[in-house]
C-alpha cells in the first residue's frame, strides 16, 4: 500500500462523492421492479375478474352486441346451483378427482419409495418416468383417443392380451361405465410422476439419522415405515394432493381431446361444461356466474395449498 495519509486526505470527501452517485432510492426501485408485474396482473387477471363478477349478475350474451344486457341479480347463481345437470357434472368431476388423486398418490408414493432404494441408474429411470407430465395434455389426450380405439387401439389389445378378451368387445371412451375410467387412466399416466417426484423429495428430506435413531430405539422396519416415513412425507403428499386437486378441478384440455365430455355427459367435467355455456351457447352472464363459482372453489383450495407450501418450505 503506497498510498500516504496525505493522498487519502486529498481524496474525495463524502459530499463530493455524493454527487457522483445518482442511484434511485430502494423504495423507488422496489416499485419500479414490481409495478410492471402488478400492472400486467391487474390488466389481465384482476380487471377481467372484476368484470366477470359484474357480468355474472346480468344476462349478457357476448354474441349479441346489439342487445342491452339486463341486471338480473343472483338469478344466474340460483339457476346454476339448483341445476341438477350441473350437479351431475360436479359429480363427474368428483369421480375424476377422487380416483386420479387416489391412484396417483398410491402409485406415486410406491414408486418414490422404490426409487428411494437408490438402486443403480435410478436417476435415469426417474427422468424417463417424469416425461409424460411435461407434455402437452391436448396433444397427448388426442393420441390416447387413438390408443383407446376398440379395434385398432393399442390399449385394447394390451388389455386383451392379458385378459384374453376380444379387444373390440369393450369401448373405453364410448361406454358409460368405462369412459370415466378412461380419463382417470390417462390422467394417472400423465400425473403420477408429479406425485412421485414430490413424494421422493419428501422421502429424501428425511435424514438418514432419523432412521438410525429409530433403529437404535429398536423400532422394527414396519414400525419405522408407519411412524416415521409416512408422517414425515405427509406434508409433501398434502402438497401434491392439493395441487393435483386444483389442477384436475379445472381440467380441460386432456378430457376435451379424449372424450369431449361424452358419452352423453358422463365425462363432462365442469370446465368443459363451462366452456360450452360460455363459448358455444354464448350465455356470457350465466357462464360468468359459473366461472365465479369455480373460481372461488379453486381460490379456496389455493389458499390451503399456499399454506401447505409454506409448511413444506419451512422444512
Amino acid at each position, binding site marked *: *500500500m*503506497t*498510498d500516504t*495519509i496525505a*493522498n*487519502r486526505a486529498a*481524496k*474525495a*470527501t*463524502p*459530499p463530493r*462523492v*455524493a454527487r*457522483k*452517485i445518482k*442511484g434511485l432510492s430502494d423504495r423507488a426501485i422496489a416499485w419500479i421492479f414490481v409495478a410492471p408485474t402488478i400492472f400486467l396482473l391487474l390488466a389481465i387477471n384482476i380487471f377481467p375478474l372484476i368484470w366477470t363478477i359484474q357480468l355474472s349478475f346480468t344476462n349478457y350474451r357476448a354474441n349479441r352486441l346489439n342487445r342491452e344486457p339486463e341486471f338480473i341479480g343472483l338469478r344466474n347463481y340460483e339457476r346454476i346451483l339448483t341445476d341438477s345437470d350441473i350437479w351431475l357434472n360436479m359429480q363427474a368431476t368428483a369421480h375424476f378427482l377422487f380416483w386420479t388423486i387416489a391412484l396417483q398418490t398410491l402409485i406415486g408414493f410406491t414408486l418414490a419409495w422404490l426409487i428411494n432404494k437408490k438402486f443403480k441408474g435410478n436417476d435415469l429411470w426417474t427422468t424417463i418416468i417424469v416425461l409424460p407430465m411435461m407434455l402437452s395434455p391436448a396433444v397427448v389426450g388426442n393420441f390416447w383417443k387413438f390408443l383407446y380405439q376398440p379395434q385398432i387401439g393399442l390399449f385394447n389389445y394390451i388389455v386383451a392380451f392379458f385378459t384374453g378378451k376380444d379387444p373390440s368387445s369393450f369401448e373405453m371412451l364410448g361406454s358409460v361405465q368405462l369412459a370415466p375410467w378412461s380419463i382417470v387412466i390417462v390422467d394417472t399416466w400423465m400425473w403420477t410422476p408429479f406425485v412421485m417426484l414430490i413424494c421422493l423429495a419428501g422421502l429424501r428430506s428425511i435424514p438418514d439419522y432419523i432412521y438410525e435413531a429409530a433403529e437404535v430405539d429398536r423400532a422394527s422396519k414396519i414400525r419405522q415405515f408407519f411412524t416415521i416415513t409416512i408422517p414425515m412425507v405427509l406434508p409433501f403428499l398434502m402438497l401434491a394432493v392439493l395441487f393435483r386437486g386444483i389442477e384436475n378441478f379445472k381440467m380441460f384440455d386432456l378430457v376435451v381431446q379424449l372424450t369431449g365430455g361424452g358419452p352423453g355427459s358422463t365425462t363432462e367435467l365442469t370446465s368443459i361444461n363451462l366452456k360450452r355455456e360460455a363459448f358455444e351457447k354464448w350465455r356470457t352472464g350465466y357462464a360468468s356466474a359459473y366461472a365465479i363459482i369455480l373460481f372461488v372453489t379453486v381460490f379456496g383450495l389455493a389458499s390451503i395449498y399456499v399454506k401447505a407450501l409454506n409448511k413444506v418450505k419451512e422444512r
Partner: protein
Amino acid sequence: MAEVQLTGVSKSFKATQAVVDMDLTIPDGAFVVLLGPTGAGKTTTLRLIAGLEKPDAGDIKIGGTSVTNLTPAQRDVAMVFQQYSLYPHMSVRDNLAFPLRSPILKTPEDEIARKVKEVAEVLHIPHKLDNKATELSGGEMQRVSIGRALVRDPQVYLMDEPLSSLDAKLRADLRVELKRIHAELAATLLYVTHDQIEAMTMATHVGVLDEGQLVQFGTPRNIYENPRTAYVAARLGQPRINLLPVGLMGEDAPAGAHQVGLRPENIRHGKGRDAQVVRVEHLGDQTRLHLKVSDHDVITLTDPHTTLEAGETIQITPENPVFFDASGARIT
C-alpha cells in the same frame, strides 16, 4: 482515515430494539472491537455505519461530516462480511478489482492491475489471482475478502466477524495478520465479534454491547480489569468470572453490594472457607476445579498436575474481589 462518531443512534426492527440511543466515538486510527453475544446489536451498529440500515434516530458522522442520509456508496467505507462477500462468478482478480471499477472510483485499468497485485502480495495470494473465487479454501477466501477492502482507501474499515467461519488454527493466524495490517495502514477499523479472544488480542479499544446498548468502552486491559458491570465482567475471561452472593466467603463488602465477582485466578487455596471439589478438569496448561461452596458453583484454577480428586475438600479465600449492586453495576 477518519474518526467515526455516533450520537444518540437508535434502530429497531419491528418489536426488537436492536440499537438503543448509542453514543460511540471511534478514534481515528483505532482498532475498535464491538463485543457482545448474538443479538446484542453489534452487527446492526456496523450496518448503520455502513449505510446498509437507516437509523430511526440519531446522527452518524464520518470524518466530521454527517453521513446519516447518504447511501453506502457515498460514505466511502469498506466492509468485510462474515462470509459470502466474494462473487462466485468472478475470478479472484476481478473480485479484488471490483471496488476499484465502481462508478465512484472509475480507476484506470493499469492502476487497478497495480493495486490488485500489491494487495495480493500483502495477503500472500498472488498465485491464486486467476482462480475462480469458488476454488479457494476458506482461509484464502477470507483473505481475498479482506483484500477487497484493502484495495480501496476508505475512511474506515468495517469488519463483521470475518474470522468466525474459519477453524481455530487459521483464526489464530489471521488474527495476527489483521493486527499487523492495521498497524501498517494506521487505519480506522471497526470490528464486530462475539469471540472474546479476538476482542482482547486485536483491539486497541473494546466496546461491550448489551441489548443494543454500549455498556463499556475502553482498552481490553481496562475492561478486563475494571469491568463496569457484572455483565461486562462475564464477557471477558476464560473460565468465566464467578458471580456469587455477597458474604458467601466472608469478604468485606461495601454497602449496597449484591454480588461479588471473583475471577478464577483470584481465588487463593489453602485457607478460608471449605469447598468441596466436584470435578477436576485437566486442560493441559491449566486445571480447573469445579467447587461447591454451600450450594454455589465456583470455578478456580490450580496447578496442571494437581492430585486433587472429586470429593475432596479444600479451603479457599477470595483475593481482589469486585462488587456489584442489585442492578449489576460495579461498586467501587
